[in-house]
């Protein structure tokens, strides 16, 4: 280990690599529709019928090509959540999301997959629960760029109360 009289030299260096990522056939439709029409498209496996979001070329379980598109509604059910106490920085914008905030996992009606996103609700365990009905809130069309962040957040449907029995 280091001795006191010895100076250890370090060399700071930044690696900055530019990319132009191609979304590919499936994500191109998904992101273009999200941006232009605000519609959410998933794919359904011809074999196991799992409705997969984001859409992808192959059902990993069946190893068959996905060819059927399914439009998903903007409403769904909160399947899981956490209260984040760490600032979450969007690396594509550099803007932080100030903690604490609720971060959750929603299953849009008809989907097999879940979608993780911010939940626009007070970070209070009594105000959020598994099974809560919610909906996606999109950015206005002119602000959308074709990214998951075009969904601004998930918000609870109005008029719900946390069930008294312990949520599952």
């Amino acid at each position, binding site marked *: 280990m280091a001795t006191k009289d010895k100076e250890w030299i370090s060399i700071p260096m930044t690696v900055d690599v530019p990319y132009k990522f191609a979304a590919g056939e499936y994500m191109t439709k998904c992101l273009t529709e999200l941006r232009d029409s605000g519609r959410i498209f998933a794919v359904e496996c011809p074999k196991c019928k799992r409705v997969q979001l984001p859409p992808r070329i192959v059902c990993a379980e069946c190893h068959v090509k996905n060819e059927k598109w399914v439009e998903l509604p903007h409403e769904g059910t909160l399947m*899981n959540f956490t209260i984040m106490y760490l600032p979450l920085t969007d690396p594509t914008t550099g803007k932080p999301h100030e903690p604490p905030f609720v*971060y959750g996992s929603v299953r849009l009606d008809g989907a097999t997959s879940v979608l993780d*996103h911010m939940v626009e609700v007070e970070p209070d365990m009594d105000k959020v629960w598994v099974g809560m009905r919610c909906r996606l809130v999109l950015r206005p069309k002119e602000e959308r760029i074709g990214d998951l962040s075009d969904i601004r957040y998930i918000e609870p449907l109005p008029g719900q109360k946390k069930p008294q029995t312990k949520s599952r």
Partner: protein
Amino acid sequence: MKRNVAIIGGGQTCHAARRHDVDQAEMVNEAVRAALKDARMTMDEIDLVILGNMEFFEGVHLTDCWLVHGTGAYGKQGVKITTGGTVGATAVCAGAHHVASGLFDKVLCIGFEKQEEGDTGAILSGVANPLWGRSMAGAAVGYFAMMGSSYIANWGATEEHSAMVAVKARQNARKNKYAHLKLDITIEDALNSRMLAWPIRMLDMCPASNGACAMILADEKTAKSRCKKPVWIRAMDTAHNEQFELDWRDVKTKRLIFSRACAGRLYRKLGVDDPAKYFDVFEIYEPATWAELIWYEDLGLCGPGEGFRLIEQGKTNIDGPIPVNPSGGVLSTNCIGASAMLRVWEAALQIRGDAGEHQVPRDVRRALTTAYGGTNWTVMTALSKTLDD
């Protein structure tokens, strides 16, 4: 496997948050020399070198080509493997394949990470798909948080149970001279540590460590003639998991998930009915406390929803009936590229009876190790003291 494969030596660095005194090659070399010394072998005798490391974590491309002086690979055959957090175990698995193939008799496997040199935050955000989730990245702790919250909601465990895991890991680490976080903490300390994402607190997570591990694998003839205490690799299995689906976070999922699929196959290969009885010690890859409880269940050490009872009853303590991570585990030391190899090496030390202060107080004949990485992948390795075990 066509030939039996034994671990005939190994070594590791003293893992730490800071290693300003060494460059990457010097750090790797410490582990390599320790392994050679342990195996009473010189570098000249090694036929092939396998390096496991995540290139992006230190911001170095083709690490294996740079570090040839540290690894001793110059002039030798060799390959580099990168499979995320599992890579250390994958390197051992690849090493076993090379020996079993009959083409190589003595193979050096190395795993390392010098996390302080890289930009862990930037690199972890790069794990997310660039078009689906990278803009939200930084939420990796959110994955484990949701795993924990699912565990609490479904099984009725409390934060105290995860705190027990946090304490066990760090107290075990105090007995392991190579471990990074040797903390004399209590359950209260764990429960009072900073909340990161409910229910994950600071002490529920693994640290960022610098360190290396190296192991030498050999065929049966070499092992028996050269090594007093060879440890045999009896079975290996790998299961990856699809890119976008997160079923594994839901403890009640009915779908077959990576960990259960992998354990099921491994047990079938060995004819294991009751893993808690079959194996004498477990070294598992638990990046977060809740993951350890879920491993208990996925490995079949107890029934679904009973994992937290095992820790509550002290069954997985060093001196318990099902010792898990006597080394202190990943919660105490996480040099990513080495972490999964450290599980295998620590299990081998237990079988040899060479684990020192953290030696399990019983005759250890069989051990099981797991790895964890990527979008929920694992590599499992089963070791034994003799070929009859």
